[in-house]
């Protein structure tokens, strides 16, 4: 039995409270969608779980088989700080994240094999030699997913980009993540900007606006009064 417990998690800067008293259970083998308006603290929530910013409260990992192991976190960022002219190949990025052997010297056969294996899981092995700047939004997202999967995470945090991916690709991406989460039995939280797809693929939805406004199945969240006030256009809204 594996699960994540978040207890009374708060993030404050000296001026304001970004996250207040977050209490959650995250379950393995399913997608949890995190939705909320701009500036609601969704990315901050991820940064806290990763340990990039300090927080108050607890983030506990229960693993009955290996009780003392620290959880591995896979992270798919929303955007990358690279420009289109960057001489960074997909292989460079994926190798650098799994080995200490400097990517400017060589890519060893063993590392290459592992990188290609994970690229093939996201159906992107043909992109290995391409530069990151030459990838489409959808391709980059798949590559970043391959990075986050190697080594297999206990918790996948996915910050979905705004409108960088077209609708058909995005649906394919959600279904891919859904399959992976089931096949490898890990937990995934997706910051979703597409409520329709989030509702289709997530079993649990969290509506966040600095604190948790509503949590439950997508249907329960959509029926919540606070949710309807924030998103009067309903689930077709791009958030």
């Amino acid at each position: 039995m594996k699960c994540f417990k978040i207890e009374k998690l708060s993030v404050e800067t000296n001026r304001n409270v970004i996250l207040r008293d977050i209490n959650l259970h995250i379950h393995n083998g399913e997608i949890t969608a995190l939705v909320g308006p701009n500036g609601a603290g969704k990315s901050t929530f991820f940064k806290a779980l990763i340990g990039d910013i300090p927080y108050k409260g607890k983030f506990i990992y229960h693993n009955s088989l290996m009780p003392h192991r620290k959880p591995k976190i896979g992270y798919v960022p929303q955007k990358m700080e690279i420009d289109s002219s960057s001489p960074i190949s997909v292989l460079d990025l994926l190798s650098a994240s799994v080995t200490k052997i400097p990517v400017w010297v060589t890519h060893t056969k063993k590392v290459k094999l592992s990188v290609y294996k994970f690229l093939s899981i996201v159906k992107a092995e043909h992109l290995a030699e391409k530069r990151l700047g030459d990838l489409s939004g959808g391709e980059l997202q798949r590559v970043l997913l391959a990075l986050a999967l190697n080594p297999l995470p206990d918790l996948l945090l996915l910050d979905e980009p705004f409108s960088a991916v077209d609708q058909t690709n995005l649906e394919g991406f959600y279904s891919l993540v859904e399959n992976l989460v089931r096949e490898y039995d890990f937990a995934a939280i997706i910051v979703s900007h597409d409520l329709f797809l989030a509702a289709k693929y997530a079993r649990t939805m969290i509506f966040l606006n600095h604190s948790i406004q509503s949590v439950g199945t997508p249907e329960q969240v959509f029926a919540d009064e606070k949710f309807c006030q924030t998103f009067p256009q309903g689930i077709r809204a791009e958030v």
Partner: protein
Amino acid sequence: MEWTQYLFMRNAFLAIILVTPIFALLGTMVVNNRMAFFSDSLGHSAFTGIALGVIMGLRDPLISMIAFAGIVSISFCIIKKLTRFSPDTIIGVFSATSIALGVVILSRGGGFSKYSSFLIGDILSITSLEIIALSFVLLAVLVYWFLFFNNLFLVSVNTVLAKSRGIKVLMTEIIFVLLIAVIVMVSIQWIGILVINALLILPAAAARNLAMNMQTYNLLAVTISLLAGIIGLILSYYWGTAAGATIVLCNATFFLASLLPELRPLLNTTRT
């Protein structure tokens, strides 16, 4: 060849072979991290470093230059992490303040001209002892480049992603900027405050236009930097010009040449 007869030219040649690969390697990541403005202002902070050395009565201000540049670099990393100011603004403030402070101290009683050699630099003044010291700096940079490159690279791509892979982001950034601070300060007396940043930026910028991955990026940057350094040094001998600035012009020529492949499609379209 005529220039090889002189010891000072042979020493300068050795120095160029040691120093240009260091600048090229560090420069690849300076450009990746969009830190060109930072390294420029780091060079300017030498003014205050020299001034502090003068106040403390040091015969050679190198120690105070490195110390001050080190403090500037670490503060930059920490402030960038802690505040929401755009790094550009912080650097602009740092840069202007350190130039002004240095110039004010050094120009007391009209004595600034004594220090103007730092502006242009003189690579012909390099001694054998300094060349030995330089080879140790090159060794240190290479060791760092072997052990920590992948971490530095991931940090440059995305800091949160790097953190999620267990990388100590702030420490990685601090060690990197400290290395830049040391090599820039050590080399300023030979290259000159005015043009030193170009040695970091230009080889990497040229290599970037041609490279498809990190391997070719590093390789091209080092090659361009070495070639421009050697050609620039020899030209400066025959032209009787400042070596630092001549080397920078050679680098700039390589940069312009690196743009040609990108310009070709444009030229073809205008013709048709």
